[in-house]
């Protein structure tokens, strides 16, 4: 929040901050925030302009809602209480081209020492340097109280700068650095038709950047001819062109209603927002500029601060996926050409730092392990571990379990101590031997399962979710028997039921999901139907894929295909990925529906309306999965179709 202002916090009772100063035709507009004193009439805003000093009491300024300030002050966030923001106007008659600002400060009446904040002197040119910061403006508009809206100054602002549509915006609220220049259009002079703004410039790696922003020409006859990145300090001096990188040709254009609306203009096309992954950017320096050029020779620049996301895939994805709506028709191209490659690089860097690998394998054995286990069950645990007690109570009823190795993999270092106590207390009640394995860090679903497999003794594995409960004793014996007698079997799954007895899983099929622009997703046919309506087909049947919640697989085959893939961020699609990897090697996936267990799946993802960040991460995983497997899945679907005919 700077735009040419520096502030100083004095040691006083007032807390405040001056954020913007806008010169306009009638005077000066100051935006800032100030926390209340017991008596706000004690606070004045003092403006030093040229040789004059103007004083305006804070209580006469228009106040507006600033929840962000409330949060940082640890105060009440209520819309009627957190009116920390203020808009102060200073009418300055005979305003010229420039305002020479000596300073602006917040002062409490009772003491001259009580200077809160100071704006350093600056020359504010009336015409050129009128800036709008979209995010602050948006916030003011969105949360302006009725009082504010009725204030004359506010009306003037609105007239001049236009309303912003509150109902829909992709990123206005988040684009904190969008800048552009607006000129006094009614003057009819030779005006720059270009408008330029940016949302994000992320450093992906030493050489790679991801730039997201927007550029328009308000004159339909003038076309944007180039977009350029440069690290030149003064963009107006032409230097060697190797300091520049032109990227207009590589962008994907996306619509930006949040930009178009306030400008109240009609455009010939939807080329407003741009997304660009620049894989080979040799520009050095932390301070870049973005320049837009028009065919007619206009150009406009803005500073482009870089945010380093090169080793932080979670922050990057969180930021990225708040900028886009998943069901937009441009998403797939944006993923394939820009976001996908960017995320991939960042994730690879993250992995290289060793977050997902461990050489530590802490194993605690409870009870005496079976000497020759027939199956090794691997159950990853994350935070909630009371499931262990419920599973043990069910295992205790099944005599087959005495020949089974049970491995609980704790994937949450913070709960290790509590979990150890829990196991120590509960093991002797049920007397079912099991291992507690911990890798010392949070490896993720794939990492935890792979870790479990690395110490498993049996030659057949069963991947089992912690919230899956066996229904009848003998379920595992049945699965193993079928597994061992079926040639070329990769993954074997069982029927899974919700707590009300309806079907949660009975094999998975691939479906092109129209809301994700026809990328493949795994569907669970018959999900939610009762067993009465979908009776069991006895025996094995081949399916396209099987869920990882209950998946039997030969240990060697698991290792042969590299276990579960760690490139799916925060889990998703690993089970499908595994089944397809097996298929490539000639191993098929099967279902044994006559075996059923309960799967207490908490909630299914709302695939339609949810703009939540995690949903968007799923879309990235979905895209990765489709990139990798589109061809194979299409072949598989065609083969099955032919079979049916």
């Amino acid at each position, binding site marked *: 929040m700077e735009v040419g202002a520096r502030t100083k916090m004095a040691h006083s009772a007032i807390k405040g901050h001056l954020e913007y100063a806008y010169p306009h035709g009638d005077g000066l507009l100051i935006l800032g925030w100030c926390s209340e004193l017991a008596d706000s009439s004690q606070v004045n805003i003092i403006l030093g302009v040229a040789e004059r000093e103007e004083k305006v009491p804070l209580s006469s300024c228009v106040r507006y809602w600033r929840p962000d300030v409330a949060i940082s002050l640890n105060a009440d966030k209520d819309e009627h209480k957190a009116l920390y923001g203020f808009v102060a106007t200073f009418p300055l008659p005979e305003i010229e081209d420039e305002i020479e600002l000596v300073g602006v400060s917040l002062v409490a009446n009772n003491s001259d020492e009580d200077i809160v904040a100071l704006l350093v002197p600056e020359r504010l040119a009336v015409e050129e340097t009128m800036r709008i910061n979209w995010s602050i403006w948006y916030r003011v508009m969105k949360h302006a109280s009725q009082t504010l809206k009725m204030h004359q100054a506010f009306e003037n602002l609105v007239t001049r700068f236009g309303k912003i549509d509150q109902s829909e915006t992709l990123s206005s609220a988040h684009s904190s650095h969008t800048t552009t220049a607006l000129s006094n259009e009614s003057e009819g002079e030779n005006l720059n038709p270009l408008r330029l703004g940016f949302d994000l410039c992320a450093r992906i790696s030493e050489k790679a950047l991801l730039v997201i922003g927007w550029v328009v020409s308000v004159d339909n006859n003038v076309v944007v001819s180039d977009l350029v990145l440069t690290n030149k300090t003064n963009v107006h001096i032409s230097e060697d062109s190797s300091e520049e990188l032109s990227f207009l040709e590589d962008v994907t254009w996306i619509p930006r209603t949040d930009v178009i609306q306030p400008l109240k203009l009609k455009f010939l096309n939807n080329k407003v927002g741009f997304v660009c992954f620049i894989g080979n950017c040799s520009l050095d320096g932390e301070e870049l500029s973005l320049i837009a050029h028009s065919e007619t020779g206009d150009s406009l620049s803005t500073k482009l601060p870089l945010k380093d996301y090169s080793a932080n895939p979670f922050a990057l994805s969180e930021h990225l996926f708040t900028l886009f709506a998943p069901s937009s028709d441009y998403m797939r191209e944006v993923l394939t050409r820009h976001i996908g490659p960017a995320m991939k690089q960042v994730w690879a860097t993250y992995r290289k730092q060793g977050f997902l690998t461990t050489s530590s394998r802490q194993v605690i054995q409870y009870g005496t392990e079976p000497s020759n286990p027939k199956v090794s069950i691997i159950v990853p645990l994350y935070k909630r571990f009371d499931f262990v007690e419920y599973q043990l109570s069910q295992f205790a009823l099944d005599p087959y379990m005495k020949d089974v190795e049970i491995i609980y993999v704790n994937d949450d270092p913070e709960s290790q101590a509590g979990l150890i106590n829990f196991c120590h207390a509960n093991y*002797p*009640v049920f007397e079912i031997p099991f291992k507690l394995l911990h890798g010392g860090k949070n490896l993720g679903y794939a990492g935890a399962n792979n870790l479990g497999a690395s110490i498993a003794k049996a030659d057949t594995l069963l991947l089992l979710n912690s919230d899956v409960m066996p229904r009848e004793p003998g379920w595992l014996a049945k699965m193993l028997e079928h597994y061992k007698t079926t040639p070329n079997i990769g993954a074997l799954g069982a029927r899974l039921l919700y707590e009300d007895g309806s079907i949660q899983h009975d094999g998975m099929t691939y479906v092109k999901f129209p809301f994700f622009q026809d990328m493949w997703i795994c569907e669970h046919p018959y999900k939610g139907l009762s067993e009465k309506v979908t009776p069991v087909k006895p025996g094995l049947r081949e399916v396209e894929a099987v869920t990882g919640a209950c998946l039997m697989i030969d240990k060697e085959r698991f290792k042969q295909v590299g276990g579960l893939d760690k490139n799916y961020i925060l889990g998703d699609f690993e089970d499908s990925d595994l089944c397809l990897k097996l298929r490539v090697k000639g191993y098929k996936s099967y279902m044994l529906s006559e075996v059923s267990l309960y799967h207490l799946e908490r909630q299914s993802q709302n695939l339609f309306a949810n703009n939540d960040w995690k949903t968007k991460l799923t879309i990235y995983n979905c895209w990765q999965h489709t990139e990798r497997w589109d061809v194979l899945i299409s072949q598989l679907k065609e083969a099955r179709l032919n079979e049916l005919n």
Partner: protein
Amino acid sequence: MNSTRVKKVLIIAHGHPELNKGGGEIAAYNLFKALDEREDYEALFMGRQSVPGAQHGGTPFSTIAEKEVLFYGEGFDVFKFTQPNKRLLWHNFREFVEQFKPDIVHFHHYLHIGIDAIRVVKNVCPDAKIVLTLHEYLAICHNSGQMIKTNKKLCYQSSPADCHRCFPDQSPQNFFLRELYIKSFFKLVDQFIAPSQFLKDRYVAWGLEENKISVLENGQEPVILERFDKLDNSPKQVRLAYFGQLTQFKGLDVLLDAVDLLPGKVKKRLHLDVHGSGLEIQPIVFQERVTDMLNKLSKHVSYHGPYEPHEMAELIQEVDWVIVPSSWWENSPLVIQEAFKNGKPVICSDIGGMAEKVRNEIDGLHFRVGKATSLSKVLERVAENPVLQARLAANIKKPVSLIESAQEHHLLYQNL
């Protein structure tokens, strides 16, 4: 089962009658005493005591009498009935069972010891037979085992989704897990005992096997006949009595409302004695209502406060009718047994265990549950027809004695 040698029975209750005077504790204790008196049985009794200062250091056990052991338990998980102090189970309790080597472990309750104690018994003495007497509907219903919804309506069947509706902060999945968990221990029980057919039917509907539940009534101490005074045949007033905790679901408010509804001259022909306590821990609204009504009806209703179980016989003999106006299903209320034992007919709600134990127009009268108007009509009828009492009293069946009950249990144990 080998019938020549003496059988060792461990009876586990959730309290000891000297410390807690509940019906369940008394029933368990009576069974213990009656079995132990037989030559073919040796019995031990184990119950909970709740005073932390009264226990020894380093062990949860203490002894109250030669064959009566107490264990100290606290922090019991009332959602899934597990013992929070697991070591108590797999170390102390295990040691105890290993030493005693019971042939039969009869859980009269699993509260406070923990339902997982059943698993420990199975681990330690795999050949011992396990019997469980069911009280209330605890395994089925999280609302204190009463099968009443949290909006006061009667509940007929549980399900994870419905239970979640009663208790929104427990997910349906949690209720499902609770049921799965409890049933995993119930699978280890050789035979269940239900004191009423009604209760048995509820548990069968919940999923227990029909032939695994036997209906056995709780035994009663015999009544000392000399105290059975003949009352004046034409009393001036018909005397009624209410016995029991003054809880919401025992229906005292319904009864007081019913008395209030009576016309003045009818009121004069009745008198109601209220015996019991526990009003101060009820919701404020209920407390206030009852107190107001007691004050209003003070000419016709006397509140006597708490009573000792052994006083019950005397108190019942002074009245003509006993009223059990509970608004929940009940199982086999001790009050009804006591009333019958002392030859008094019962007026009760027309649902659940009450309606089963009291036969309408035969040894008692029913009224529509929760409806003061319905009860009021019955009271009026009773007031206007004093001979009704003697007619119904004549039909009362003799209750099962303690010795008979012990014999019934013995036959059950034999068939395991």
